[in-house]
C-alpha cells in the first residue's frame, strides 16, 4: 500500500511539474515575443509610434488580460503603461524581474514577472505578465491532482481489502476441508469455483492428492481385510490340531501325524507372511543396487530345467522355445522367482494332456508363458495380480493367492509390463521387457 501510494504520488508530481513548467515557459516566450514586436515598432515609428501602440494595447485590454506594459525614461519615470512605477527589484540572472503587484483595497497582492528592454535613446521598456492567472491554474492543477490521488488511493484500498478478503475466504475453505479430512472424513474434497486461477489449481492438485491417498488407503484396507480372512482359516486349523493333541486318549502314531500337521500349518502361515513381507519390500524400496545385466536365455533354461520334469510328471507337454538371446538389467533371483511362480501356476491349473510353452521373442523383447488350462476371464485380468485374489474355481486348490502379486511386484521393479491374454483355450502371460 505504501509502495502504491508512493508511486501514485510520483506520477502525479511528474504530471504537475511538466504542466506547470510548460505553462510558465509558455508565458515567458509570449513576453519575449511581445518585447521583440514592440522594439521593432520603435525602430520603425520612433517613440511616438511605440507610445501609441502601447496605449492601443492597453485600451484593447480585456478584463482578465494580465499583460503588463511600462515605458520609462532614463530616470525610470513612467511615460505610459498600466503599472505606476518601475519595479524596485533587481533582475535575476536570466534578466527577469519577479515582483509583487497590488495590495490596494480591491486587489490582493500577487506576483508578477517581467522583462526589461533598453531602447535606443535611453528609453526603458518593461513587458510582463501578472502571474495571478497562472498561479490560479497551477493551484487548480494541484487541487485536481490531489483529488485524483485521494480517489485513486481510496479505490486501491477498497480493492485491496476486497481481494484479500476473497483470498482469506478461499484459504479458509481449504483449511476447513483439511480439518474435516484430518478428523477422519477422507471423502471430503476442496470446492473449486472453476475460475482456473491459482487457487483453483492448488485445490485441484490437493484434491488429486487426496484421491490418490484414498485409493491407497482402500488398497491397504482391502489387503488387511484379506490377510485377516485368509490367515484365520489356517490358524483355526492349527489351533484345532493342537487342541486334539492336548487330549489324553490320542494314540502315539496319530500324535506324530497331528504334530506334523501343526508344523505344516505353521510353516504355511510363515510362508504367507514371508511372501507378504517380500512383496512389500520389493514394492516399497525400488532399489536397484543388486541389479546386474542378466542373460534371459540361461535363466529361462534353468526355470525350464526345474519345472519341466514337474510338468511332465503331471502328463503335460512342456516346450521351451528360446533360441534367441536377450539381456535385462535386473535381479537374477527375483526374476527366477517371478518366472517360477508363473510356471507353477500354469502347471497347477492345466489338466493332464495339456500344453505349456515358454517363448522368448528377441525382436519384440517379450517372454510368453502359455498354457491350455481353464484360463482367466477377461473381466478378471487386472484383478488376479491383487494380493490374496483367487478365482472362484481355484479356491479349492492349494495356494496362498500371493504368487501373482509377487510376480507383479517383481515386474514393476524391473519396468516389465505384465499382461494377460487368451490362449484359446488357456492363458498366455506376456512379459514385455523394457527396451
Amino acid at each position, binding site marked *: 500500500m505504501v509502495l502504491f501510494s508512493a508511486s501514485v504520488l510520483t506520477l502525479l508530481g511528474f504530471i504537475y511539474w511538466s504542466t506547470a513548467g510548460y505553462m510558465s515557459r509558455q508565458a515567458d516566450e509570449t513576453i519575449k515575443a511581445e518585447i521583440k514586436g514592440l522594439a521593432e515598432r520603435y525602430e520603425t515609428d520612433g517613440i511616438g509610434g511605440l507610445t501609441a501602440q502601447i496605449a492601443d494595447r492597453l485600451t484593447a485590454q480585456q478584463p482578465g488580460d494580465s499583460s503588463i506594459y511600462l515605458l520609462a525614461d532614463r530616470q525610470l519615470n513612467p511615460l505610459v503603461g498600466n503599472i505606476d512605477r518601475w519595479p524596485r527589484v533587481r533582475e535575476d540572472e536570466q534578466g527577469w524581474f519577479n515582483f509583487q503587484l497590488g495590495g490596494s483595497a480591491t486587489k490582493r497582492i500577487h506576483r508578477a514577472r517581467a522583462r526589461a528592454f533598453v531602447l535606443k535613446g535611453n528609453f526603458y521598456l518593461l513587458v510582463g505578465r501578472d502571474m495571478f492567472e497562472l498561479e490560479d491554474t497551477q493551484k487548480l492543477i494541484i487541487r485536481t491532482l490531489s483529488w485524483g490521488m485521494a480517489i485513486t488511493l481510496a479505490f486501491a484500498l477498497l480493492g485491496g481489502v476486497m481481494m484479500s478478503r476473497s483470498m482469506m475466504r478461499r484459504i479458509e475453505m481449504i483449511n476447513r476441508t483439511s480439518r474435516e479430512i484430518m478428523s477422519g472424513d477422507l471423502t471430503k474434497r476442496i470446492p473449486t469455483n472453476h475460475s482456473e486461477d491459482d487457487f483453483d489449481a492448488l485445490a485441484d492438485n490437493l484434491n488429486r492428492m487426496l484421491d490418490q491417498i484414498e485409493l491407497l488407503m482402500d488398497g491397504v484396507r482391502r489387503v488387511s481385510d484379506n490377510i485377516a480372512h485368509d490367515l484365520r482359516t489356517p490358524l483355526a486349523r492349527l489351533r484345532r490340531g493342537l487342541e486334539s493333541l492336548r487330549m489324553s486318549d490320542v494314540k502315539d502314531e496319530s500324535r506324530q501325524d497331528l504334530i506334523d500337521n501343526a508344523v505344516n500349518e505353521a510353516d504355511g502361515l510363515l510362508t504367507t507372511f514371508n511372501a507378504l513381507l517380500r512383496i512389500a519390500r520389493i514394492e516399497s524400496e525400488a532399489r536397484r543396487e543388486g541389479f546386474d545385466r542378466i542373460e534371459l536365455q540361461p535363466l529361462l533354461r534353468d526355470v525350464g530345467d526345474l519345472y519341466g520334469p514337474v510338468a511332465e510328471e503331471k502328463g503335460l507337454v512342456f516346450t521351451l522355445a528360446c533360441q534367441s538371446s536377450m539381456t535385462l538389467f535386473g535381479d537374477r*533371483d*527375483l526374476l527366477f522367482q517371478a518366472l517360477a511362480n508363473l510356471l507353477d501356476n500354469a502347471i497347477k491349473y492345466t489338466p493332464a494332456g495339456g500344453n505349456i510353452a515358454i517363448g522368448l521373442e528377441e525382436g519384440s523383447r517379450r517372454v510368453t508363458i502359455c498354457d491350455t488350462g481353464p484360463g482367466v476371464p477377461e473381466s478378471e485380468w487386472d484383478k488376479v495380480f491383487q494380493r490374496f485374489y483367487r478365482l472362484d474355481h481355484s479356491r479349492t486348490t492349494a495356494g496362498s493367492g500371493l504368487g501373482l502379486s509377487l510376480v507383479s511386484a517383481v515386474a514393476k521393479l524391473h519396468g516389465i509390463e505384465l499382461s494377460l491374454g487368451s490362449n484359446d483355450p488357456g492363458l498366455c502371460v506376456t512379459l514385455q521387457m523394457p527396451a
Partner: protein
Amino acid sequence: MRVLVIEDDHDTAAYVVKGLKEQGHVADHAADGEAGLHLATGESYDVLVVDRMLPKLDGLSIIKSLRLANNQTPALILSALGEVDDRVQGLQAGGDDYLVKPFAFSELLARLEALVRRTDFEAPTTILQVADLEMDLLSRQVKRGGKIIELQPREFRLLEFLMRHSGQVVTRTMLLEKVWEYHFDPQTNVIDVHISRLRSKIDKEFSQPLLHTVRGAGYVLRAS
C-alpha cells in the same frame, strides 16, 4: 561338532543350543557381539552361528574381524532380513551361509553339518563313492554295481551334491541353492519330482535303497 551360537535373542539361542545338544553336539552361547568375538578367537570351534543384529558388535563385523585375523572357522549368518542384497552383504563379509529367521531347526542343522563337512574334504577328489554307487567326476560317469547309469546334467549335479554330503540330511532349500544356484521360495515342492526321478534311476533296480526321505527335513543319501 563344537558350535558357538552368537545370538542375543534368548529364546532362539536356547532353542538352537538345546537342539544341538540333543543331536550330540557341543554348543556354547554368547549373548552379545563382544563376548562372541572373544569366545570365537579364544576357543576352537568347528562352526559359528552368528546373528546379524547384535548388541555391542554386529554379526558382520565379528566375521570380518575373524577373517582379518586369519581365522577361517565357517560361519552361518542368521538374519531377519532375507533379501538378496542382505545375503550378498553377509557372504561378502566372509560368511559361508545365510539363513533367514524364522527357520526350522532341521534346516539349520543340515546347513551346519554341510559347512563342517566342506572344510573336511579339502583334498580334491575325482571319485565319489557311497556303497556300490560310484561317481567319476572326470569322465562324468555314474555306475552302480558296475552298471552304468545315464543321468541328465542337472541330475548329475544333484547326485554329486548328495554324494558329497552322504550320510547328512540336506534340505530342499539347500538343494535349490547349491544345485540350481537360485535363492527363491518355490510355491510347491518342485525338488520332490527331481528326487523321485533320480531315485528311479539309482535305486529302482537294486535291492538296497540309497536315497531316503527324512520326514520334515529333507533327503539323505546313505548305505543303510
